[in-house]
């Protein structure tokens, strides 16, 4: 064993001391990114899949049946809501405003609520929906992967889900995300 070999053993390379610093800097970066994410936004596996099948009574005309196939033919919004849901109330004016633009038909899934309350609510606050399906026991909500009302889906002409918005939709969300997507889908379909 030579003297030179011993020297390298006793003097480890300086850069090795920077390794812990580098690792912690990397962790901090990950945490900063992680904190910025919204844990409520769970990616839906239903995107680019056909709208889940259902067959439910309509809110105003309980004798008539509303099926997922009724969504086909044009680009539409499918909104899951209930009167017990405060965020739905917050979102409601945006929906009525969207309805006024005549840009896109809005359909509703009236989720786990008393139909009478829904009728009252729409009378009082205005009715942006073309039709509502009444899902009293929430079974169809499960089929659609609903977990945080309100939820809004963009459905294309073929009845394929193209986008999901979880939570109350703002006018900004509508203008910046949903409307451009709807116009794009319409162009592609035409």
């Amino acid at each position: 064993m030579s003297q030179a070999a011993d020297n390298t053993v006793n003097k480890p390379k300086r850069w090795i001391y920077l390794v812990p610093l580098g690792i912690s800097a990397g962790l901090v970066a990950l945490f900063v990114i992680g904190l910025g994410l919204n844990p409520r936004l769970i990616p839906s596996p239903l995107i680019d899949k056909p709208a889940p099948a259902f067959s439910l009574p309509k809110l105003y005309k309980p004798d008539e049946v509303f099926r997922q196939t009724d969504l086909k033919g044009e680009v539409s919004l499918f909104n899951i809501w209930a009167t017990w849901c405060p965020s739905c109330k917050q979102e409601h004016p945006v929906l009525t405003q969207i309805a006024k633009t005549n840009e896109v038909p809005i359909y509703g899934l009236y989720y786990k609520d008393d139909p009478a309350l829904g009728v009252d609510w729409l009378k009082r606050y205005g009715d942006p929906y073309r039709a509502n399906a009444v899902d009293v026991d929430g079974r169809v909500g499960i089929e659609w992967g609903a977990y945080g009302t309100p939820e809004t889906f963009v459905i294309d002409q073929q009845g394929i889900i193209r986008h999901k918005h979880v939570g109350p939709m703002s006018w900004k969300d509508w203008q910046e995300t949903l409307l451009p997507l709807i116009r794009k889908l319409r162009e592609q379909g035409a």
Partner: protein
Amino acid sequence: MHKVVLLFFMMLFPQLIYAEIAGFPFESEQEEERFRELSAELRCLVCQNQSLADSNAALAQDLRTELYEQVLSGNSRDEIISFMTDRYGEFILYKPTFSSRTLLLWLTPFVLLIFAIAFLVRFSRKAGHSASTQITEDELEEVRGLLDEEDNKL
């Protein structure tokens, strides 16, 4: 006294008493076991740090009912899990499946462990090495020479 003992054991094994199984009667133990197992493995999407078994959210109750009916109708574990993930995504699983997307998640701990072991081995070897080379054969010769000299002086 019995109650105190019971309480003591309940506190020792809290996982045995979570049983949100009331209202879900089963005929066979396997079914009950499957229900219990899956409701603990599936995550409530509303209160995200609780399982379906723990959560009292309305959605968790609905999903428990769904789970119960599927267990009763004899659906397999895989069938039930794919029913849930088809609708709610991988997020509903506390234990994500092993796939290309979760590769990093699953492998990072093992990679880090290997690195750590490699570092440990390297550094401990170096430490052992330097200790053994503190006295080289040449140095030993020198010491022997000096000792002999001392002996000769006497």
